[in-house]
């Protein structure tokens, strides 16, 4: 361990579990699909063809076609793009906002912290989906960007709380005292010592949260508050197909399974990263 860099060690821990390897493969696969769909599929995800509506799976359409005659597999692959976009971007947004709030409330402590903590408490008490529902009506554009905002904002409190705790802990650590003894300025203390040390637990939650966000997006879609047609999204496809479960089982099950696989991938990856970078974090989230 001594002569092994932390990074390679972490990687080693990460990949020592078969499940994690599987999860990483899943995520990578989905990312590749999202990036390369236009090359992968000969079909246009938006071109409707009413004559080939709801075809059963065949060699031409591996998973059949949807109501408007679009290739289900192609739309699933475009849905990957949507889901990943929403998942990744919203988590990005919320973590940045959350980190900023957490840093402020943790570093300045006192009244700032008390006020912000109570607000975060209050927001955390409102079930996520309600918050998201209200927000999604507010931004009712039905666009991907809108959903990113909605889901991003609704998870900000989680990060804020986590980071506040983290900052409060690190702020009082010996090495931060050491910085003070050295007479280093506040700005430098925050940016180059406090922040980097708070990031790793955030990273863990972040990965897992991508999964949860994708799930939340599908729930919203199911409630009719998701991305507008004709953009392909898994949640949208579930809600558009679930009544056809009996007659078109493949069409109805496929988007659900995709959601599960991707979320599963991110969850396991999150767990894996947590184990790899900080075993002490186990079970705290």
């Amino acid at each position, binding site marked *: 361990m001594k002569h092994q860099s932390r990074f390679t060690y972490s990687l080693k821990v990460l990949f020592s579990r078969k499940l994690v390897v599987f999860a990483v493969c899943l995520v990578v696969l989905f990312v590749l699909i999202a990036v390369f769909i236009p090359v992968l599929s000969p079909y246009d995800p938006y071109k409707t063809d009413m004559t080939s509506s709801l075809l059963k799976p065949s060699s031409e359409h591996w998973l059949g076609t949807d109501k408007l005659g679009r290739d289900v597999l192609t739309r699933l692959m475009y849905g990957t793009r949507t889901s990943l976009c929403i998942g990744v971007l919203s988590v990005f947004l919320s973590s940045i906002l959350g980190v900023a709030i957490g840093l402020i409330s943790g570093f300045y402590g006192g009244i700032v912290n008390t006020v912000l903590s109570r607000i975060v408490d209050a927001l955390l008490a409102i079930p996520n989906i309600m918050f998201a529902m209200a927000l999604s009506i507010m931004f009712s554009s039905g666009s991907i960007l809108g959903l990113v905002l909605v889901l991003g904002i609704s998870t900000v409190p989680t990060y804020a709380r986590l980071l506040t705790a983290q900052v409060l802990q690190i702020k009082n650590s010996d090495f931060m005292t050491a910085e003070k003894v050295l007479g280093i300025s506040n700005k430098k203390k925050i940016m180059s010592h406090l922040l980097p040390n708070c990031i790793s637990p955030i990273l863990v939650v972040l990965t897992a949260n991508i999964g949860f966000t994708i799930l939340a997006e599908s729930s919203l879609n199911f409630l009719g508050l998701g991305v507008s047609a004709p953009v392909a999204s898994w949640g949208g496809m579930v809600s558009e197909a679930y*009544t*056809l479960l*009996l007659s078109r089982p493949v069409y109805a099950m496929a988007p659900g399974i995709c959601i599960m696989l991707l979320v599963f991938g991110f969850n396991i990856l999150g767990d894996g990263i947590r184990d790899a970078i900080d075993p002490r974090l186990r079970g705290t989230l």
Partner: protein
Amino acid sequence: AGCGGTKDTASSSADESRVTETAANAGENSQAAETNAENSNYGGTLKIGLQNAIVHLGYVHTGLGTSEAMILDTCCEHLCRYAEDGTLTPWLCTAYEEDPDNLTLTVHLREGIKFHDGSDFNAEAVVWNWQEWTNAGNIELNCVDNYEIIDDHTVVVHLSEWSNNIATSCLYTAGIMVSAEYAKANGTDALDKNPVGTGAFKFEEWVVDEKIVFKANEDYWIEGLPYLDGIEFAIIPDEAAQISAFQTGEIDVLLNCNSDASRTLKEAGFTPEAKSLISGGMSFMFWFSCQDDGPMGNVDARRAVCSAIDKDAIVNYIKENSGAVIERTAQWGPNDVWSANPDLKGYPYDPEAAREYLKAAGYPDGFDMIIYYGNGGDDEEICSLAQSYLAEVGINAKLELIDSTITNELSGINGESFNGMIFSAGRAEVDLTTYYNRTFLPDGVRWVNQVTHEEDIVELINLATTCKTFEEKEKYCQELSKTVIDDYCELMPLYISSDTIFTHGNLVDHGIYQINAIIWTPESAYLTR
């Protein structure tokens, strides 16, 4: 003769026979009932699955929604019913006479009927109901000067000016009868939770958002009816649950399912029941926001949109998948009715023409627009299809899902104009004067900030409502239709759809959706085993 003349004579001459016919029918039915009782099973409780939440029930004087109106028919009856051909037929009254010259409508009431609370159904009750209707702010009876009670079972309505809709308004629209005594004793609000009518079933219980229960009325005025012991409406908002509940037999009837559910049930071997309708279906159409500064404010751009979309293909597609009877039409109402204009073209599918229109409008390369649509039905598919057609002529439409509040706001008096169109459904009225005035008159309440209030349209509407002969009305209505759709291209009708039901095949004479979606004649329905 006044402008209601044609109907007037026809209905009054038919009155007697009609009444006897009804009675005879009832007799026949009761006989049939007896035979049925021996061989097969009737009675029992009919469970009907319903997807919409019900908000109002018995306070008839506020506007009721489609399902609400239908449910209320279980326990309350109208003075007249519609026959299958769409003519007004006496039911709680025995006959009526219209007199446009003397500005009167005389109504003869059926005798010996009691409300469920035991009070008598008489002239006083009828007048109270009418007055209540007006008091609640409804405009239909605004032309009435006063009501004259001749005796217990005869009322004369005196008008201040002639309206050719007065019979429909008094006998059907405002002609639904609830117990005045009950209302006086408990307040009209009580009626909202506990409707008291004269119908074959008595209201029993209403668990909001869950179920509405009716029990058979032992003292129904038609001897031997009803057959069923009770009727229960079960509210199931989710489609999957509806399908499942129907398939497992938890409900006997599924009302108004969309094409997905129809398709699934059809594939599971059920046949939808739907009647081809002359009147009373739902009309599905796109409304343009014509007052917008953007492309939508330009009539040629709207024409381009209309021509670019293959409406026939879309409707065919919907028709194939749906369980309902669907009729492609280019007008607001159905195709084969008196108000329909056979000359109306309605911009048939023609991408070339669309491109021409685009050029004429000054957008040779197309433009951006929004299509708003609501949640439910086949709206999303239709709009997606429309969008992909528009894309082909270079019009880039963005779909946006909105909910009913936003729809109401956009269509309401404060609605802001937007660059696009909105997909919406409304009752397919035969008589255009009932809806056009709400929309195209400058003091209307619907789409007022979206449609153009062109002078010629306003004038045609006024002429159509006040004319005294039916021929005139027919002419003005047809002209109106063409002006609105062909000349100004304010809306793009797609189709008219009937309402469908699925049953397990053991429900006989159910009377649901026989006339239209808001009329139900439940008294002679029964279940076989």
